[in-house]
């Protein structure tokens, strides 16, 4: 059975209904309506590389307005926020990101004589794949673990994407409709406020 798809435009209606508690509504609407901010932590070149990498890690070709991922990472680093731990093998988050992004550009330059953001998707994917496998070329990767950096970048991008209400709509998540509680919790049970999968 293929993976289901879910109908669009359900999340905003739900968020404005009384099925959502005020703290949940406030948190999700803020994210849904966030405007992209000018980068504070990265410079323009770093930001271009980060955006290009995020666009391949979480491709959103079908979205007219892609969910902002790179800005969220920039915002986190500018605020000095972390998740409570880091691999001892990596330098502090901000430095790891700066060096890792420089590494992507070095690899791109070595392979194709151009910055990472200027490569086509196939070329970008090949470089990201080699970083993930610890096989990327470039001086940065001699002292920065490509595999660990890639894992951190991917986790950061993934968490930001799936924290977005539209990404949650995409996968049929309705847990944020939290005011009434759930009664129908068994297999194949669905409550009226849970979007029904499109039949394929």
């Amino acid at each position, binding site marked *: 059975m293929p993976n289901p798809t879910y109908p669009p435009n359900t999340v905003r209606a739900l968020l404005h209904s009384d099925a959502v*508690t005020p703290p949940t509504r406030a948190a999700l609407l803020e994210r849904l309506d966030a405007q992209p901010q000018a980068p504070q932590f990265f410079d323009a070149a770093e930001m271009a590389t980060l955006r290009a990498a995020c666009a391949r890690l979480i491709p959103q070709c079908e979205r007219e307005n892609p969910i902002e991922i790179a800005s969220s990472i920039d915002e986190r680093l500018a605020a000095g926020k972390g998740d*409570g731990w880091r691999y*001892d093998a990596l330098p502090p988050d901000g430095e790891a990101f700066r060096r890792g992004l420089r590494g992507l550009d070095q690899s791109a330059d070595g392979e194709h004589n151009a910055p990472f953001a200027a490569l086509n998707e196939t070329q970008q994917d090949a470089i990201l794949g080699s970083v993930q496998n610890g096989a990327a070329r470039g001086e940065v990767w001699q002292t920065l673990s490509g595999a660990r950096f890639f894992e951190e970048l991917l986790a950061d*991008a993934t968490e930001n994407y799936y924290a977005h209400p539209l990404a949650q709509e995409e996968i049929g998540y309705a847990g944020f409709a939290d005011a009434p509680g759930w009664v129908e919790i068994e297999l194949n049970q669905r409550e009226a406020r849970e979007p029904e999968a499109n039949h394929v």
Partner: protein
Amino acid sequence: MFDTEMREYSRDESVDALVIGTGSGGAPLLARLAGAGLSVVALEAGQKWNPARDFATDEKAQDKLFWTDERLSAGNDPLHFGNNNSGIGVGGSTLHYTAYTPRVQPDDLRLFSDFGVARDWPLSYADLEPYYDELETFLGVSGPNPYPWGPPRACPYPLAPLPLNGAAQLMERACQTLGIRTSPAANAALSAPYFRKGIGWRAACTNRGFCQAGCSTGAKASMDVTYLPLAVQLGAEIRPECFVINLETDAAGQISGVVYVEDGIEKRQKCRNLFLCGGAIETPRMLMMSGLANGSGQVGKNFMAHTGMQVWGRFDEEIRPYKGIPGSLISEDTHRPKDADFAGGYLLQSIGVMPVTYASQVARGRGLWGAELREHLRGYNHTAGINILGDCLPYEGNFLELSDEKDARGLPKPRIHFSNGENEKKMNAHAETIMRQVWEAAGARDIWKFDRNAHIIGTARMGNSGDDAVVDADGKSFEIPNLNLPDTSRFPSALSANPGHTIWALSLPPPHLF
């Protein structure tokens, strides 16, 4: 919480007991000591929340419940901290624990006698049992009567088990065909409204599925809605947003008080007894920063983290894994497997999962990205998991040290070295085979495992002698008699049960001990 007026103590007054940390280790004893008429103050690094007003059903917004002062993870299996284990705020990690409350089995406490590895505990199941009984009744644990494993119980669970969700139904069905016994799990979340003197009414669980990122209804027995309001009513003072940075001693080497930071200002609180309840990282870190209680050389040593492998599968059935108590079904048939090639054993538990947590695990654990990642996540509503919770042995190479790097508070970041040993690898392999069989029998496709260790344990172990242990069976330091370490830091072995229930049991000492 704290509807009643809270008593306040002077900082110059030497209080009978000062408790650092208001999680599983600190909260029950705070209530116990206050109830005995002692003057008690608790210092908590984090803030006090009003769950109904402050808790969103949103993982990112709830990051505030996790201890995010950075820790450095070293070793072959570097541990994930933050949302994987350590909490901050009035209530500590219980604000985001899963509410699973299995008891240990008697032989969990004697790994050395039975297998010649790790350490025996300097106490027995009979010592814990009356406290387990008391806790289950006080907290309102929902569980099955009878419970299929462990010794017969003096007290039944006070409430019926919570309803099974989709993942639990799948696991139950498959285990039946494989001859593995299962049971609805015991959870410290209410299956019916519950009244306790000193707390009042708590509402029944609404199946919101968000235990691991904060219960907004008070149905889950976190400390902020149970022992802490009781403690306040009995005369304890709780000071939130007070970060302890140093322990002080008098001329005789006894603890005389602590230095803490509140609103950027350094303050002192004098005390006659100190209970350090920061968990297995902050507790040894504080002892090391203060240079205290380490004559045995064991502070920071023997760090352990439960084996916690998860196996996930994709099903035709719609599961919607965000609904219902996450830990719905249990099996302890693997407590001491007959075909085991390892010491100890483990539990099997069905698991629900929140979307960001699952997506992050897919990214880290499987390394999926691009279109493949998005495609996989479109199957979220058809995803169910099982995990284990198993013993972990103490090893010399697994320890905590202070690094040269400073955190935002100017304190040395802890570096934690952790590698699974042969015993954990064999246990994981055994468990992976069983979990894959279960999911295959349940009709899963695309089965995959996520390597994981959970909970922070050890680093100030309890024993019979100060030569090779930090504290005695009552949690008292061998070197500094007015210093007590009540929580997981004193566990001599990890136990094959979620730790909360046992920490609470250790944190309910008879007041005559002080």
